[in-house]
């Protein structure tokens, strides 16, 4: 039996009419954008896919015509903060179109950005739950922030708007604090951001032994609020949580905090806020130094005053004691002096009396001696007078000698020549008769 065949065109026309008659004009379809390419005339061409555990279960081409694409992408970006791009899960209003030559494709007429938002929130929550379960969400907060962060590792891009502001604020702080920092370059948006930021963190950790950073700072300026999905990445969050340094984020964005912010030690809104935070540490430290100085000064003054007061008291005490002692000694000296005066007066008086007594005795003795001497002399005088031959002669006595010796001192004989003295004369005579004087001999 010969088969009835139709042409390919006829088949395609059949398919097209079947599809047209059986399909609704439009469907809301949930799918992931596989790849999105912009065409020359402003049209957008994309693949829509559905995946399960990494395997693609369904795939279809789609396009968005130029006029529609402009309005859809603007609305999408303003709502989600993200441009339409591959990897996003979307809910799109599509109509199925079959072209005899180009085959089947979807014409995207609208995209509901709220679905993508919800989807992202779901994914985000999933990552947060995973990080929480793995104990990573608070891990970086275990570090104690240094009081003063003087050495800072910065992950940013020199081209990022916030980086310049951040550096300027650090360098030109009015207090002229010196802050050492080193930039580790990384893309801060787009698909390269995650691997480059992770790489920069590894690089900083490798340098830690020699550089001894106090703080790791991830900063990114404000600008377009697009492509911040990288900061919701699980791997990046994990690396930040496990970092060997406290991490401070300053990822300028207006929507809810990113997951990178959640796992960081400290999250701040903008790079300049991070700079202010770092400088405030310096200021607080300086203020505390000042406070301590003031306290030290105050306590020192108080101590000095108390010591001065104590010294003054002691000085008074010593002075009083000294005065008291001096007075006591003076009184005692006075007593001694009076006693000495009394004793010396008494002694003097006594000695005086003794002297007078001695003087009287002496005078008596002298008088007696003188009297004795005078008496003795008187005796001598009388004796001399008595023995003076002239006195005897004057009184009529005579004296007779023989050969110059008194005759009563020698033996006489007849014929001896005698010399006799009287008051007036010297008489020489011879003994012619010698008799014994009877009167004397009786």
């Amino acid at each position, binding site marked *: 039996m010969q088969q009835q065949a139709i042409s390919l065109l006829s088949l395609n026309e059949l398919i097209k009419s079947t599809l047209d008659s059986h399909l609704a004009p439009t469907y809301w379809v949930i799918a992931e954008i596989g790849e999105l390419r912009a065409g020359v005339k402003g049209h957008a061409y994309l693949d829509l896919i559905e995946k399960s555990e990494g395997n693609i279960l369904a795939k279809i081409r789609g396009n968005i015509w130029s006029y529609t694409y402009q309005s859809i992408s603007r609305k999408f970006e303003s709502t989600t903060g993200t441009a339409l791009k591959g990897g996003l899960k979307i809910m799109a209003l599509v109509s199925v179109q079959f072209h005899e030559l180009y085959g089947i494709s979807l014409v995207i007429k609208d995209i509901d950005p709220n679905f993508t938002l919800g989807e992202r929130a779901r994914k985000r929550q999933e990552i947060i739950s995973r990080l929480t379960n793995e104990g990573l969400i608070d891990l970086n907060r275990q570090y104690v922030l240094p009081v003063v962060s003087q050495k800072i590792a910065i992950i940013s891009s020199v081209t990022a708007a916030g980086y310049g502001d951040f550096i300027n604020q650090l360098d030109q702080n009015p207090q002229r604090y010196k802050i050492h920092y080193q930039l580790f370059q990384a893309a801060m948006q787009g698909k390269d951001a995650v691997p480059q930021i992770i790489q920069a963190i590894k690089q900083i950790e490798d340098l830690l032994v020699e550089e001894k950073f106090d703080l790791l700072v991830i900063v990114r300026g404000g600008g377009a609020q697009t492509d911040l999905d990288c900061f919701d990445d699980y791997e990046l969050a994990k690396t930040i949580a496990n970092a060997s340094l406290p991490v401070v984020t300053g990822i300028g964005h207006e929507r809810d905090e990113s997951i990178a912010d959640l796992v960081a030690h400290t999250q701040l809104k903008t790079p300049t806020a991070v700079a202010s935070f770092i400088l405030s540490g310096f200021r607080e430290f300086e203020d505390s130094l000042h406070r301590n100085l003031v306290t030290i000064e105050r306590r020192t003054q108080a101590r000095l005053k108390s010591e001065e007061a104590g010294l003054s008291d002691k000085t008074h005490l010593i002075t009083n004691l000294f005065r008291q002692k001096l007075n006591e000694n003076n009184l005692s000296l006075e007593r001694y002096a009076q006693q000495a005066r009394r004793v010396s007066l008494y002694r003097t008086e006594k000695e005086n009396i003794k002297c007078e007594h001695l003087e009287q005795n002496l005078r008596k003795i002298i008088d007696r001696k003188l009297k004795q001497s005078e008496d003795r002399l008187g005796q001598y005088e009388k*004796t001399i007078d008595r*023995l003076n031959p002239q006195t005897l002669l004057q009184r009529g006595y005579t004296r007779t000698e023989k050969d*110059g010796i008194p005759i009563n001192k020698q033996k006489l004989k007849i014929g001896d020549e005698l010399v006799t003295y009287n008051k007036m004369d010297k008489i020489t005579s011879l003994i012619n008769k010698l008799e014994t004087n009877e009167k004397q001999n009786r």
Partner: protein
Amino acid sequence: MKNKIDNLSYDEAISRLDHLVKQLEEGEQGMDELTKMVKEASDLVKVCKQKLKMTSDEIKKAFEEE
């Protein structure tokens, strides 16, 4: 002779006087010698009296000076 007596101290003079008086008491000398001795003894008595007088005056003066 007088000068010789003046130069004697009181004790020497007394001693000499004592000696002379003893000799006089013994009376063994001749008239001339006796007269000389009496003269010397009288002079010695005078000198001794003067010395006593001087001593007495000096002592009196010394006590009065107090």
